[in-house]
């Protein structure tokens, strides 16, 4: 089972409209586009954490958004559990139902008019049926998720995003992403504003999740609990080393290197990766 990829991206190309200064309102025709992803392939298996690293602006966020079907690529395929992810496809529906995401910018990803509790519990309500638990478990699970990211549920459940500090908001977003036992978590620099102590705690949580412990869904073929996967974008190589099984290194939209964590960090093949590692050990 774990050999099979859970989510795979193949030969993704993506581009943005390239606006430059001298285009007026009445310029017809197609805007030139600037490609930001070139033939990028990546995959993640159940129980694994895939880290995407690379310099800022190298296309990491774009890739993750495409992998979740939140943006469309120019070409390439995404497959989730063997089904193709396309607009309106069964694969997309399955992916949406079983995944969750943590955005790079925590504030704009929390509804300003929802309490923390509501934001965190919403995914639970959405998947309550599928997960098969009772209504009265929701509050408990919500509190638990908050506790797992190091926020005291008693003080934070009723708060609104505008009263949170950057790190707190980010942790709420993480809590929201893990609360409903998704099979796939996409995290775009989830811990950038979080203090180190909390980071450690969250990483432990992630590891726990990856191991499948506490997961309710059971794989019908093996009888084992389903093991989720995590795709994490991060700059913090320490964090990456801590949790990732495999790494994809992006540079200006191209994959320069990918492989197991130890291999990539321990014995980088490209100069670029080497520079990244060197710069990290300040």
């Amino acid at each position: 089972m774990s050999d099979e990829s859970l989510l795979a991206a193949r030969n993704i190309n993506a581009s943005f409209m390239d606006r430059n200064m001298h285009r007026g309102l009445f310029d017809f025709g197609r805007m030139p586009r600037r490609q930001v992803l070139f033939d990028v392939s990546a995959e993640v298996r159940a129980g694994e954490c895939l880290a995407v690293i690379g310099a800022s602006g190298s296309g990491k966020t774009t890739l993750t958004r495409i992998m979740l079907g939140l943006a469309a690529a120019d070409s390439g395929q995404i497959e989730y559990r063997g089904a193709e992810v396309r607009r309106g496809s069964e694969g997309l529906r399955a992916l949406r139902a079983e995944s969750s995401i943590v955005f790079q910018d925590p504030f704009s990803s929390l509804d300003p008019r929802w309490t923390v509790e509501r934001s965190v519990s919403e995914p639970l309500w959405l998947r309550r049926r599928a997960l098969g638990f009772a209504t009265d478990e929701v509050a408990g699970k919500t509190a638990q998720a908050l506790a797992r990211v190091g926020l005291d549920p008693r003080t934070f459940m009723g708060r609104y995003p505008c009263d949170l500090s950057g790190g707190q908001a980010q942790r709420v977003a993480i809590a929201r992403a893990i609360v409903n036992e998704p099979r796939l978590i996409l995290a775009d620099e989830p811990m950038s504003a979080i203090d180190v102590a909390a980071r450690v705690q969250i990483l432990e949580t992630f590891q726990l999740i990856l191991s499948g412990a506490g997961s309710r869904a059971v794989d019908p073929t093996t009888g084992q609990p389903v093991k989720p996967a995590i795709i994490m974008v991060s700059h913090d190589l320490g964090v990456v080393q801590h949790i990732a099984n495999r790494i994809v290194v992006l540079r200006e939209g191209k994959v320069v290197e990918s492989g197991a964590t130890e291999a990539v960090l321990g014995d980088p093949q490209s100069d670029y990766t080497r520079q990244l590692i060197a710069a990290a050990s300040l």
Partner: protein
Amino acid sequence: MSVAVEGLNIAIGGTTIVADAALSIADGERVGLIGSSGSGKSMISKAMLGLLPLNATVSGSIMLDDMQVVGAAERELADLRGRYVGTVFQNPAASLNPVMTVGQQIGLPLKLHYDLTKDERVERVGAMLAKVGLAKEIAVKYPHELSGGQQQRVGIATALITSPRFIIADEPTTALDSMSQRQIVDLLTSLVDDAGASMLFITHDFSVLARATTRCYVLESGRIAESGATAEVLADPKTPESERLVSAARSLTLRSADGFQSAKGDSHER
């Protein structure tokens, strides 16, 4: 610019957020401010500029050289901000003006405080962009067209364009990759060291902290828990809070292929 904060209290809607904080930064000094998230770091930095929300109540004293910020007139503060004090906000996505191009945004402090021609401004903006590691072409883009790290560097460029005498950097490197991080930190330290400015640096990343600052304060739930030379605090934290943070940082430090390279060892070097 020397900074002296004494007995600072900040409360919002009845909840105390910062209590009796005192910290000082001498001319040419790089000072760090660390603490778990939500401990009030950003609040303190905003208070130094008089940018707290309208419903916040502040008491105590914040002296920037000989100017009292608490209760100062908006006009005087405005003269200060952007000219002598540069600020990097924690959340670039929420602070970069969506209808201004990057060039306009970075050039804004120049435009407000200095009498330069447009070409001069463009030139300086271009130079500044290069310093933070961004291409010149980015100047015509709008913030939403940039990646997170690019936005953050635009914020930094805005803060530094006037070569301010006091820099407040609130987690300026969170969205940056390790190479850019290094570049930015070096940029900041060189600015401070060469120009004799002072800096307050807020971060969660201890390797960055070690590189960027000489002294640091540890904040715990709105109170200063500890202060001292950065190296010492990292090597030998005295309070449980610092201890907790430092030990966590160690466990998250990148281990090189051949073994464990501790944060401790790292910080001993400097």
